[in-house]
């Protein structure tokens, strides 16, 4: 563990990297200096708070406190995924169900198989990894769904006019949207180790864990993310596409741009 040498003073020196970004923004007249400063300040405050909260939760080692963290992460991820729904009705509720089910199943499997222990220092970070991954997947699903419903609305109308049920009329869109949610995870799996040394593995190696052992954790994370994004994408898409139709199985014009 002695390799971990980040202190307040080294962090201050590391701030020079932020200045690099600010200088580039200034030279190129990108007008992003305000965003960078706000982003950095927010990151420092948020992470500091989370750091202290995690320290408290881990020290307390209380099952209810751990579950509370799980719920807060799931609700927060759902809120953000819902915002990406961009006008799709009940996007928050759909995201909540998708993230809750996806996270619970994946986490439950990991605990049940003994891959991780039900202790806050493992449950909280892994919940965060799973929920944020599903959140991103749902955002992609919603974006793709909204776009393709607009692009292919004529085709959907024709299918409905032929007596198709809303699921059959939207089946292509449904499949494309589920795929769009899962695709980044599948793509990143293909380049694991070749291009990127992902967070979990890098973190363990940083902390001095044997890389071979760290790889095992990363493989577990890979399985976990694959399962969670597929569960999350399927649930959110199956709940989402229905929102494009009214109770008479007519396409809602207001959702088609």
């Amino acid at each position, binding site marked *: 563990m002695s390799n971990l040498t980040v202190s307040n003073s080294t962090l201050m020196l590391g701030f020079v990297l932020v200045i690099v970004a600010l200088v580039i923004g200034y030279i190129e007249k990108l007008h992003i200096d305000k965003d960078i400063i706000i982003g950095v300040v927010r990151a420092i405050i948020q992470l500091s708070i989370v750091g202290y909260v995690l320290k408290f939760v881990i020290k307390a080692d209380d099952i209810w406190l751990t579950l509370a963290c799980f719920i807060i992460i799931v609700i927060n991820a759902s809120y953000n995924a819902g915002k990406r729904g961009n006008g799709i009705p009940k996007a928050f509720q759909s995201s909540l169900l998708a993230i809750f089910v996806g996270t619970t199943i994946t986490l439950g499997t990991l605990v049940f198989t003994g891959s991780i222990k039900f202790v806050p220092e493992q449950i909280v970070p892994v919940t965060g990894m799973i929920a944020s991954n599903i959140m991103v997947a749902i955002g992609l699903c919603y974006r793709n769904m909204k776009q393709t419903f607009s692009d292919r609305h004529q085709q959907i*109308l024709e299918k*409905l*006019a*032929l*007596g198709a*049920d809303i699921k*059959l009329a939207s089946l292509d869109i449904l499949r494309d949207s589920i795929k769009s949610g899962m695709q980044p995870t599948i793509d990143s799996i293909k380049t694991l180790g070749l291009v990127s040394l992902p967070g979990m593995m890098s973190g363990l190696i940083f902390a001095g864990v044997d890389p071979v052992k760290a790889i095992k954790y990363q493989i577990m994370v890979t399985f976990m993310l694959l399962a969670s994004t597929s569960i999350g994408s399927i649930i959110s898409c199956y709940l989402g596409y229905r929102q494009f139709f009214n109770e*008479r*199985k*007519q396409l809602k014009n207001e959702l088609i741009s």
Partner: protein
Amino acid sequence: MIVEKIFDVQDLSYQVGDKEILKRISVEIEKGKYITVVGPSGSGKSTFMRILASMISQTSGKVLFNGKTVDSYEPTEYRQRVSYAFQQPTLFGKTVRDNLMFPFEVRNEEFDESKVKQYLKMVNLDESYLDKSVNDVSGGEKQRIALLRNLIFPPEVLITDEVTAGLDVENKNIVHSMLNEFNQRGLTILRVTHDESEIEASQDKITIKNGEVVDNV
């Protein structure tokens, strides 16, 4: 002789925001008729037809189909009985087969290739068309294939919205003869058209102007 009404439209209105597109339309449509709906562009013809096909719902008033309100039917069942054909249809999937398979998928039935081939003949397309790419068919062929999707399982009513617009004479004639044949077999047809020759040839017409029925012959 008792006249059987297939549609009984009562005080039908359709409004978008403050704009009244259809104003208290009341009209009866007899079973088995071939009716042409005419009127200037923007008069509300297509909106009227889309309401009859349950693609959109009226703001007020009601439509009775075979004596029962349209809303009392399950939407997919209703649209299999009252089919709507679009002016510029899109073909689904990759091949013509994908399109003609679709009505079977809708009804959870197995694809009947020999039946489909007979229908293709009816619209002057040989069976090799089944495996043709949707990108390799002309505009006229596309419209004929699209109409077959509506007619492979004959509905009770076919609503066509300017389906012959932009077609050459040969394609128009093929579409006309197919629709006439189905009409003779008992299919009620409601068509919107701006084609003078089609309007002249029509015996039964409904004229819509500014969202109102001004003539019902």
